[in-house]
């Protein structure tokens, strides 16, 4: 691997070489985030302005069409929209009018840019402003880009949350904002723990609806629950909030360190911290102990997918005893994942970006015990005899926090167990 000339050193505290690749990527675009965001923010509609491809991606990546009329849709550009700009804006206004009439429950409308809308330079921020004038205060109209030329997979959520930040209400109260969308149950667990530490004012971005979006002040502190929130972080800092940096709350150790960063930032006593965390820590440890035997010394290879890779690699290596071979991530923001990176011993190859054919070569060469990859690659690799874990499951399943530490480890245990159990 050393002959790659595009290895760069990550400067600063972690002197870690990163293999930067710029070839064919096999990662979803940011539109995919809509699939969980539209469930999370319950009064929002996500209107993609794009092509039939965008509509097809949303429907295929969702896997099943369980929602009769979901709170997302695609305004598909047609030949006539491409001809003249004025036209496209009028058409958009008409579609929005129809939509809002049919769905009076919608309080927030996100216009979501796509590759086609960006290439033809359809100005959606302009459109959002115009439409806001018509529909505010009943409906708040915002815009962000989920295009594949600008964003990968989870960066769609980043763009969405970043678009919300300027609209957060200004106060001068202190509060702590948890940033990143989580399954409700996990969110409640984490909020509960922080409350028990003695912090009263806790808010979550994104709120579950327009009424529960956090307010913000120069005294606000925030902590990320997801590692892919680069632009959101910047936007929050621009509004004067300060970030508590921490490893991400995966596993017993991750969750404890994450909570401890909050504790330290607020000057909470060690005793208090012990009281609040000892029981769930013990539970999580015990549960992981049982699963560890199945994972110990097994090798793992990550294809880039959600930017969760580095924190998850930290969890797998430190808490489950797995050996990392390569940890690929579509994009690495050092200032966000450094705390996790620092904890990884026996540094594997860290790669950023992708050249999928070369990466497949490396993967086959190293024949890992488990390969974390997208749905497009999983079956082909299984057919070659490798064991895989669908990366997307890590995004759609509750895996954060103490009570989910076991579930997270189990996601990796199951394919290995299955391989052992099958006799065909």
């Amino acid at each position, binding site marked *: 691997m050393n002959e790659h000339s595009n290895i760069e050193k990550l400067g600063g505290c972690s002197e870690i070489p990163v293999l930067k690749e710029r070839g064919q*990527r096999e990662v979803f675009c940011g539109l995919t985030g809509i699939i969980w965001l539209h469930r999370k923010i319950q009064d929002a509609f996500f209107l993609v302005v794009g092509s*039939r*491809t965008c509509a097809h991606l949303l429907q295929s*990546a969702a896997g099943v069409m369980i929602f009769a009329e979901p709170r997302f849709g695609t305004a598909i550009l047609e*030949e006539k929209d*491409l001809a003249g700009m004025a036209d496209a804006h009028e058409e958009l206004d008409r579609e929005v009018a129809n939509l809002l009439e049919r769905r009076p429950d919608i309080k927030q409308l996100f216009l979501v840019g796509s590759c086609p809308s960006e290439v033809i330079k359809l100005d959606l921020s302009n459109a959002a402003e115009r439409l806001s004038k018509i529909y505010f205060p009943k409906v708040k109209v915002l815009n962000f880009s989920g295009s594949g030329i600008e964003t990968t997979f989870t960066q769609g959520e980043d763009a969405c949350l970043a678009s919300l930040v300027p609209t957060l209400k200004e106060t001068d109260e202190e509060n702590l904002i948890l940033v990143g969308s989580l399954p409700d149950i996990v969110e409640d667990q984490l909020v509960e723990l922080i409350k028990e530490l003695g912090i009263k004012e806790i808010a979550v971005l994104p709120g579950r609806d327009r009424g529960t979006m956090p307010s913000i002040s120069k005294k606000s502190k925030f902590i990320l629950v997801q590692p892919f929130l680069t632009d959101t972080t910047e936007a929050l800092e621009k509004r004067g909030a300060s970030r508590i940096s921490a490893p991400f709350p995966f596993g017993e150790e991750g969750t404890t360190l994450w909570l401890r960063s909050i504790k330290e930032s607020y000057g909470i006593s060690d005793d208090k911290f012990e009281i609040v965390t000892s029981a769930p820590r013990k539970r999580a440890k015990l549960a992981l102990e049982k699963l560890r035997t199945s994972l110990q010394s097994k090798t793992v290879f990550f294809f880039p997918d959600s930017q969760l890779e580095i924190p998850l690699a930290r969890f797998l290596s430190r808490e489950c005893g797995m050996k990392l071979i390569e940890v690929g991530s579509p994009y690495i923001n050092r200032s966000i994942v450094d705390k996790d990176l620092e904890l990884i011993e026996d540094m594997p190859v860290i790669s950023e970006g992708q050249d999928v054919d070369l990466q497949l070569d490396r993967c086959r060469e190293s024949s890992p015990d488990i390969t974390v990859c997208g749905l497009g690659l999983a079956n082909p690799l299984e057919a070659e005899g490798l064991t895989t874990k669908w990366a997307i499951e890590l995004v759609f399943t509750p895996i954060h926090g103490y009570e989910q530490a076991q579930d997270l480890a189990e996601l990796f245990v199951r394919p290995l167990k299955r391989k052992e159990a099958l006799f065909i």
Partner: protein
Amino acid sequence: MKLSIWTYEGPPHVGAMRVATAMEKLHFVLHAPQGDTYADLLFTMIERGNKRPPVTYTTFQARDLGADTADLFKKACKEAVERFMPEALLVGASCTAELIQDDPGGLADALNLEIPVIPLELPSYQRKENFGTDETFYQIVKALACPQEKTEKFSVNILGPTALGFRHRDDVRELKTILDDLNIDLNIVAPLGAAPSSIKSLTKAHANVMLYPESSELACRWLKENFGMSYTEHTPIGINSTKDFIEELNQIRGVRDSFSDNSRLNFDWWSKSVDSNYFTGKRVFIFGDATHVATASRIAKEEMAFSIVGIGCYNREYARKIRSLAKDLSVEALISDDYLEVEKRIADLQPELILGSQMERHIGKRLGIPCAVISAPFHVQDHPARFSPQVGWEGANVIFDTWVHPLVMGLEEHLLGMFREDFEFNDTAGPSHLSNSKSKLSEEKETIVDNEIIWAPEATKELKKIPFFVRGKAKRNTEKFAFENGHSAITKDLLYEAKAHYAR
């Protein structure tokens, strides 16, 4: 601009992928942004494909826009040819690349590759997936087919099966058996399993079987015009269509009669047996791609004695065919790719069975109407491990079983009606072999007080005694009857008057 929520068809480049993925030794370089790589999972997940689709995406990014994207494309072509060593290269653009106008064909030509390069024009903002399959296969045939000496014995090609086609793999297997019976040699199956080098030999055959017009009509026509190859127009799905197909082949071949062993056909007797009495006049709605809808309509009418209440297709290319068929059936045709429109039509018609795609299955679930899948788009569960063709004699058997499966059959229907109060045998139970198919209809339609028309309590009670799978229709009919006859309240008597009025 048109708001779309669920789509029946993907963009045309997905059609091109269906052709490329079906074939061997062919590679497709698609100028597209990274998100478009989602299309791989259609093949690897829905069909459980064990290989990656043979597609290289250039995955250009915003920072590449401008001069760089063309170079990126050329680099991708060169690397793909080196790595995968295909016999021919398809090149094309997705919706985004179409806008940046890099001209994949011209760029690939400039590389002077040693293999044929087949450029595709796939107008993403006008056409859809099925067009993509038809056009791609046609371009491949046009680029590669060349004059060949005919085989000595009468032989045909089977044209049309692609990846992600509804039961295409199994249809080919069944059709091979039938051709074998008829003593007709099979030259080549394409695109499924064909390499570019075998496309060259297409013209050795005497005629073509156009198995699915959606993906092979352009190629069949071109081969007829340029090589005088006749092609079959009957799709052999269903008993009578299979017979007609064989007859058509006989005519092309110039033989009077030929023997096809249909001793494995059970459908005809199954349909005549007394248990099937209960299918008579079952009201069905049929929607999907035009070919499967047309064949299903014939089966429904002639071979099941169902009553067809509506048909339609999502692929506009064949709208005319479906419209004229609808006229023959005296029903209205619905030509639409708007899921909500289809749902509305079904809700209005309240059929007892839907024959459709996976989209209609979702509609059926919501409305509490059973549905059997007859057409793409389909779900992983409609791609079974066992041999389950639609084509030919065995296909007919499979169709019988599939359509009957979601229905409440025979005596069971009576028993459900007789023992309505039985706690186990109640009307939300559904067919006894479908453990979790709880009817939603009974819950949704429970609200008995409508805005204009009032249901008397004793009529409501009576309505509940009507089997759940016709209750929605009964309620609707009664209200319509009441409305038309100027009643504002529905009594038990009126309920039965309406029933008599609508008796079939």
